């Protein structure tokens, strides 16, 4: 089968973001989605550190250490963008004003619990940032992750083994193998990569899947 590359995953997610959406792209893999947003759609990117209308990375030499994104990388601001303080920024998230947020994950449970902030290892230094706010705040939470860990375990699980970031919060999962909706009736497969059939996907995934009608 043709597993999606990380860029292909980002491109796939980007396709599902409608014009006019207010979107937060999490640190890491989700950041790549910005590269694939169709140029003919106006989409509003939010960054937790107080900007809306975030533009692409600046040209080399044009970086401004006071114009950064949540990953602390230099960015730009589009015409029509604006700045605000952290209280307002997280009110946007917590208050349900973002249409979509895209997050990376260690695991997603069949009920839509998300684990993406902490491995739970006893010697790990925990850091949560805005992950828990994003998980519960946006109207739709999209997760992007590999379907399997490097050692071959499925990241879609019955119950999260890692400490959760939010309960019952994921709406859709984009993996390198499939696009899967989390619904009240369970996980519904919308798409699979070329060369993958449903039985094989189900074999790899330890929770019941159904195929979208």
């Amino acid at each position, binding site marked *: 089968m043709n597993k999606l590359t990380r860029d292909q995953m980002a491109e796939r997610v980007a396709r599902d973001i409608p014009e006019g959406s207010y979107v937060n792209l999490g640190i890491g893999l989700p950041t790549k989605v910005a590269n694939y947003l169709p140029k003919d759609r106006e989409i509003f990117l939010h960054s937790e550190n107080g900007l*809306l209308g975030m533009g692409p990375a600046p040209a080399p030499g044009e970086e401004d250490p006071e114009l950064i994104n949540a990953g602390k990388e230099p960015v730009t601001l589009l015409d029509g963008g604006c700045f605000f303080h952290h209280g307002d920024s997280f009110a946007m998230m917590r208050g349900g004003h973002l249409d979509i947020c895209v997050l990376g994950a260690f695991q997603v449970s069949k009920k839509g619990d998300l684990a993406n902030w902490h491995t739970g290892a006893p010697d790990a230094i925990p850091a949560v940032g805005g992950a828990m706010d994003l998980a519960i705040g946006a109207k739709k939470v999209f997760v992007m992750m590999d379907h399997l860990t490097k050692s071959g375990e499925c990241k879609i699980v019955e119950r999260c083994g890692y400490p959760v970031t939010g309960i019952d919060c994921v709406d859709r999962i984009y993996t390198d193998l499939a696009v899967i909706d989390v619904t009240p009736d369970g996980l519904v497969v919308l798409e699979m990569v070329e060369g993958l059939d449903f039985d094989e996907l189900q074999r790899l995934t330890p929770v019941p899947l159904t195929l979208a009608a």
Partner: protein
Amino acid sequence: MIDKTVASLEEAVAGIFDGATVMIGGFGTAGQPAELIDALIAQGAKDLTIVNNNAGNGEIGLAALLKARRVKKIICSFPRQADSHVFDALYRAGEIQLELVPQGNLAARIQAAGAGLGAIFTPTGYGTLLAEGKETREIDGKHYVLEYPIKADFALIKALQGDRWGNLVYRKTARNFGPIMAAAAATTIAQVSEIVPLGALDPEVIVTPGIFVQRVVAVSGAASARVA
């Protein structure tokens, strides 16, 4: 291209349904979106719950909406004023419900709705008639009342300038409830004196980011400063 500006006041208030909760900006007439209210009266929605600091002045604006018998209930802090006779008469006749809220709790409850909080413990009103029957708690030696968010289906507000993304700036004390109501309503409709091109508003001085605004309509600039 996203363009939240609409061409007419009629279009601006389209879809406001019977029974809706509608926040209306303004402190007295400063910041009151008089033209949007007139359009709402013409539009005809009824059984409305209105959230405003006051309950109308004279016979215009909010008072005219009340007079047209479109309002089932009003949530406000200061209904009784020298010129609130329309409200006064309806209230005495038992034809309008009043939920009286201390002004700062009104603001805080509107903010809580916009910020997604489930409830807040506020010190205002503790031990008074307006906290009767409400849950209270002592925290660090001080007494608080539990208050819940006030959300709205629509907010009608007035700003000075807006752009096609819905960004807004206000003028002087006409700002008042506009920014916090914009964040608390599912659909926020702003009347502005001027629609400016995208990028014309300094990103450092935008008061209401467009994420909180769904429709922007221009009214004549002169109207902005008049005593509505």
